[in-house]
C-alpha cells in the first residue's frame, strides 16, 4: 500500500467504528422507554410555572446575593493581601487558603449548623441569609485572588499620576486603580458567577421549604415524587438557559478586550 492508501484505509476504519457504535446504541436503547423516562412532556408541563417562578428565581437570587457578598469581601481581602501591614496579609492568606481548600458544601454546613449550634451565631435571613454568607465566603476566597491580580495588572504609572495630582493612596485606589482593575477582570469574574450558579445546588443542605427551593432541589424532589427523570432534563436545560448567555457574554468581552489592546 502507498502511504496515501494507508491514510485512506485508516479514515474508513475510523468512520466504520463510528457507524457500528451508533447502530449498536440505536438497537440497544429502548427509545420509547428513554422518552418516557427523560422527555415526558406531560411531567415537564406540570413543572411550570413553579419551576420558573420559584426554582429559577431562587437560584438567581442566591447567586446574585452570594456574588455581591463575595465581591465585597473579596475586594477587602485583596486589599488586605496587598497591605503593608503584615498581620492583614497573614489573615487574608489564611482565609484564602482555608476557604479555597474547603468544599463549598462543608462551608455551607459550617454556616448553617456548626455556627448556630457551637457558637450560638445565627445568620439572619433564614435559608437566603445562610446561603448568601456560605456561598459568599467561598466565592470571596477565589475573587480575592482575581481582584488582586487585576489591581496589580493596572500599570504603576496610573497610581503615580493620581498621587502626583494630590490624591491620597485610598482615593487613588478607589477612583483610578480599582475601576480599571475591574475592567480587566470582567471575564474571570463572570466565570466565578457561573461557578456560583452551579454551587447554589448545594443550598439544599440548609434545608428548604417549598418556596425556598432552588433548581436542583426542586428537580430532585420531583424526580423522587414522580419516579421519572424528566424533571432533571428540565432543570438541566434551565441551568443552561442561565449559564450559556453568561459564557457567551464572557467570550464577547474577552474578544472586545483583545481588540482594545
Amino acid at each position, binding site marked *: 500500500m502507498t502511504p496515501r492508501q494507508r491514510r485512506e484505509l485508516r479514515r474508513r476504519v475510523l468512520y466504520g467504528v463510528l457507524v457500528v457504535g451508533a447502530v449498536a446504541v440505536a438497537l440497544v436503547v429502548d427509545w420509547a422507554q428513554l422518552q418516557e423516562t427523560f422527555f415526558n412532556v406531560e411531567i415537564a408541563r406540570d413543572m411550570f410555572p413553579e419551576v420558573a417562578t420559584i426554582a429559577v428565581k431562587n437560584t438567581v437570587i442566591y447567586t446574585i446575593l452570594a456574588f455581591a457578598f463575595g465581591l465585597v469581601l473579596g475586594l477587602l481581602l485583596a486589599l488586605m493581601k496587598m497591605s503593608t501591614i503584615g498581620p492583614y496579609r497573614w489573615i487574608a492568606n489564611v482565609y484564602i487558603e482555608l476557604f479555597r481548600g474547603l468544599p463549598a458544601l462543608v462551608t455551607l454546613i459550617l454556616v448553617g449548623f456548626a455556627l448556630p449550634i457551637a457558637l450560638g451565631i445565627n445568620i439572619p435571613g433564614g435559608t437566603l441569609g445562610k446561603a448568601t454568607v456560605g456561598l459568599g465566603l467561598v466565592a470571596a476566597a477565589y475573587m480575592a485572588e482575581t481582584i488582586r491580580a487585576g489591581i496589580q495588572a493596572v*500599570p504603576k*504609572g*496610573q497610581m*503615580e*499620576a*493620581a*498621587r*502626583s*495630582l*494630590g*490624591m*491620597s493612596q485610598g*482615593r487613588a485606589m478607589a*477612583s*483610578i486603580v480599582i*475601576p*480599571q482593575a475591574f*475592567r480587566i477582570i470582567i471575564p474571570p469574574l463572570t466565570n466565578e458567577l457561573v461557578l456560583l450558579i452551579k454551587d447554589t445546588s448545594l443550598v439544599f443542605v440548609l434545608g428548604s421549604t417549598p418556596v425556598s427551593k432552588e433548581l436542583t432541589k426542586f428537580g430532585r424532589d420531583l424526580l423522587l415524587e414522580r419516579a421519572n427523570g424528566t424533571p432533571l432534563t428540565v432543570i438541566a436545560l434551565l441551568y443552561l438557559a442561565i449559564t450559556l448567555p453568561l459564557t457567551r457574554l464572557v467570550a464577547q468581552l474577552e474578544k472586545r478586550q483583545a481588540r*482594545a489592546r
Partner: protein
Amino acid sequence: MTNGTSVPAIDVQQLHKHFGEGENRLHVLKGIDFHVDDGEVVCVIGPSGSGKSTLLRCVNRLEEPTGGRILIEGSDITDPDADVDAIRTRIGMVFQQFNLFPHIDVLNNLTIAQRRVLKRSKDEAERIARANLEKVGMIDKVHAYPAQLSGGQSQRVAIARALSMEPDMMLFDEPTSALDPELVGEVLEVMRTLASEGMTMMVVTHEMGFAREVGDRVVFMDGGVVVEEGPPAQLINDPQEERTKAFLSQVL
C-alpha cells in the same frame, strides 16, 4: 512664604537615594545640591542611569529620598510630618508615558482631581479644564477617550491635566521620549508657551534644542552627581568637564 528675599521654588540639599537592600543596594543619587528659582526653567540632561529622573521624582516624593532635604517654596517636604498630598497639588507632573486615566474621558481626566482633591464645584472644574484644553489646543477632544488620542495629543492633555490643578511649578519627566519624532514638536510648543508665561519648570529631557532655546539653566548629571551646570549656550556649546563633552558629542 516670600519674605523679601525670594525663596527657591525647589531647593534640593545633599540628596541621597538608594534603591534595594543589602548587597544589591544601589546608590543612585550621591549628594545632589540643586535648585530651581521661582519662574526659572531648568533642564536636566545626562545619560540614562545618571539619576536625573530619580531626582525629579524625589521632588514630589514619588521616590522617597534616603538622605538630604528638599524644600518646596521654603517648606521641607522630606519632613515626616509634611502633608505630601497637599504639597503635590502645588507641583504639576508630566510623565514620559503620559499616564492619562484610560477609563474616563479627557474632560474627566482634567476634572477628577480638581473635584476630589481641591473640592472644586463641577462647573468651576470644567471651566478650568476647558481653559487648559484650549491652551494646549485639545479643546476639540474634550469628550474623547485617551485610547483615541495620538501620543502627542495624549501628552498635551496630560500637561493640561497638571495645569488644571493650577500648580506653582511643573515637573517634566522626559515628556517627549515616548513620542514618534513627528509628534515631539507639538508638545515642545506647549512647553515653550508655558515657559514664556513664567511657569517654574524642571525638565528632564534629551531635547538639546529645547534646552538651549527655552532653558534658563542646564544641569548635566552623570553617575548620581551634578557634574556641571550653567547657562544653556555655555554648557552645551562650551562644556568644561570631560564627561559633559563626551555626553554632548554623542547626542548632538
